[in-house]
């Protein structure tokens, strides 16, 4: 949660609207 | 060529993976976000034109969308890997980072570190009867 908040505040919320979501299935380490 | 700036951030981070942490590249991150906005705005224009009947713009739209996804991935990877280094430093240096390390963190990274400290401390207090400092004695004794 801490990390996601960080990504949102630093980067995601400044991106175009359709790119602001962090997709868990794509970003979870394999 | 697009996505060059974000690649510079990745290369810069890769070079510093020997344990040192370079200063947070705020300028670099800002430039990447600006590039993303420009790509997105151009795509909006082309999509509107396509709806109005203009043909042949699909390649451009797809190209810019791919660049946007690439920028997003690389930017998030830059942030993720910096947090990973900072997290390791907590286990190595303790809850107070050396001044020369701390000065290379952005304000948001300092906030992240503070919250991470609290989470870790809270978890360690919950272990056993009196808590357990997991960051001590990480190597087994000689015996």
């Amino acid at each position, binding site marked *: 949660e801490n990390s996601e908040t960080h990504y949102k505040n630093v980067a995601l919320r400044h991106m175009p609207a359709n790119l602001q979501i962090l997709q868990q299935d794509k970003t979870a*380490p394999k | *060529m697009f996505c060059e700036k974000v690649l510079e951030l990745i290369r810069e981070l890769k070079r510093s993976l020997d344990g040192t942490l370079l200063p947070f590249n705020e300028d670099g991150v800002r430039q990447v976000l600006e590039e993303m906005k420009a790509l997105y705005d151009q795509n909006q224009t082309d999509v509107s034109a396509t709806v109005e009947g203009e043909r042949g713009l699909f*390649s*451009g739209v*797809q*190209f810019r*969308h791919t660049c946007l996804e*690439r920028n997003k991935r690389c930017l998030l990877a830059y942030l*993720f890997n910096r947090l990973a280094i900072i997290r390791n430093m907590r286990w190595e240096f303790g809850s107070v980072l050396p001044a020369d390390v701390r000065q290379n963190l952005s304000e948001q990274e300092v906030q992240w570190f503070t919250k991470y400290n609290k989470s870790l401390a809270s978890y360690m207090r919950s272990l056993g009867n009196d808590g357990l400092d997991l960051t001590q004695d990480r190597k087994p004794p*000689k015996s």
Partner: protein
Amino acid sequence: DNYFNLEDILSSQEKVPVKTELPMFRLGFLNSSSDNEHILPGTKMELPFWLATGLCSRKRKIVSVEMPKFYRAGYREIFTADANVVDLHKLGPYFYSFGTKLLCFELNESDDVAKSLLQTFIDRFRRIMDNSQNALNQETSKLTDKLDEMERSLFRASQQSLFDFQKWETR
């Protein structure tokens, strides 16, 4: 693939040869060998892997991909003859990682490339292991010069475990 992995991101920056299937208006800057503003169908050029993947979806193929030179039959024969003499860093430097990524395009040669990647790794592994375990206090750059990035990280991991064992023995 690991979304946040730096090696993965860098290996996807390697170039692949492509041929355009649809016109690409106002994207002429992608073709370094031409000054045209637009790219016509049938144009051959090189694009980074990540971009070629984005333009090569099953739904609408803007470009089609060809196998890069170092993974084709001619080079595969060299690897079969003696994989140890090849400078994979010069061909790479993410030879295995990039080669594995190419398999997603399902080209005719993909099966052969997959087998070649595996066999090349097997043929070179023994020497990497021996060198890393027997080069404790000496300059290692000559031993790692021709290794690709994955092999170099294996070499480092092997050396690290040797140092750790020594430290444990003399603790």
